[in-house]
């Protein structure tokens, strides 16, 4: 299991939790497992063909997975995953 930090805009879909556990050997498998646990998150994270929405960034130990191996990036149990969609609020 890997700890995944859920952004504030998606917490309702994760039962209000700030961090959840999900399993998977790669970022893609981890996100698939996350969506299986919290199905409402599905269309907000992933495109119809299973890709990562361009307005959502995923960071593995502080590095953007788009500059690693995207969904194929391998993940270990002690890695920290942060999901970060664009956030507009200013006032």
């Amino acid at each position, binding site marked *: 299991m890997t700890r995944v930090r859920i952004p*504030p*805009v998606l917490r309702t879909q994760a039962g209000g939790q*700030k961090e959840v556990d999900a399993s998977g050997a790669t970022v893609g498998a981890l996100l698939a497992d996350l969506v299986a646990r919290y199905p409402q998150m599905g269309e*907000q994270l992933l495109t119809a063909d299973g890709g990562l*929405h*361009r*307005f*959502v*960034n995923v*960071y593995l130990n*502080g*590095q*953007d997975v788009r*500059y690693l191996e995207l969904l194929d990036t391998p993940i270990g149990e002690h890695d920290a995953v*942060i999901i*970060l*969609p*664009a*956030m*507009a*609020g*200013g*006032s």
Partner: protein
Amino acid sequence: MKASPVREVLPQEAQNLIDSGAALLDTREEHEWRAGHLAGATLLPPVEVMVRVEQVVPDKTRPVVIYCASGVRSLRAAVQLASLGYQNVVSVAGGIIRWKAEGRPWELPSNTPSVATNPRYARHLVMPEVGPEGQARLQQAKVLFIGAGGLGSPAQLYLAAAGVGTLGIVDFDVVDLSNLQRQVVHADNRVGMKKTESAAMTIRSLNPEVKVVQHDEMLTDDNVDRLIAGYDLVIDGTDTFETRYTLNDAAVRAAKPVVHASVFRFEGQLTVFVPFEGPCYRCLYPTPPPPELAPGCSVAGVLGVVPGVMGLLQATEAIKLILRLGDPLIGRLLIWDALDGSFSEVRLRRDPACPACGADAAEREAAASGATVTAAS
């Protein structure tokens, strides 16, 4: 015997040295300074030369141009500087009198005490990292705020207090009672007043030495280039994706740094976009999310102190850029979780395929080179 590090030069050579980065000191009295001085000069009256010059010009290898009215006091001061170890000091022969007689440019100080001696900035002036030179840099800086809201309010107050010389504020809205839970630049008796006007009133009462420019309009693709043109950097306190992209694309075109923050409920994010040096907003998110994934604060709510903290972090980054201090948050996104009381950081990268700053950015970069953070240069 070593050659003396002190020389007298004519105004033209002094100008050349100033243009190539020499420190410029004016060693006259305050009342003389008020009648006009050279642009970019720091006032250092004769009695203060020995005690304060090391704060003003910490680097003794940096060339120093010093002048007075006619060249007598400045030559004496130049010899004093040499005795302190300054390696390259020139005194302007004939002083500012000759300078003016040659028709060279000079300027009148604003109607305030010189920042170098202004007690308002005493806590800055004693710090070597700021000092009179940094304070003068703050005074010359022009910062544009997009929005006088939750983020803009605290940032405007502290940049005004810090003595940033010109604050521009873009906002088309009026003060609403529901703003006052966090927008501390406004006040209860100003509900219904234009936000730009309300913010300007507060800033003037806090620091009348700051020039406030009110841009009472909505930021759009049509006016953004004009609005940001006169400023050194922009503080983004908008709350819609549309304006964030409008600002980003214009800031990249003009190579202006943007200090970016956003807030949501108990969390805030902060980064500094310096075009072509680090990523821009579109490198991060090339397209906006659908509205249901990104509700604004009016829908989702926000704890009032969260934009307060994030706005002050924006002000801090702006001061770092102006003073060229520390490590600005370029290519780093800081995430603050108020409930955890924790800060975390992720790494941001430039996207070579970025529609704003990637691909054909090279020529724009060349055209704009040297145009970033030019607050005091």
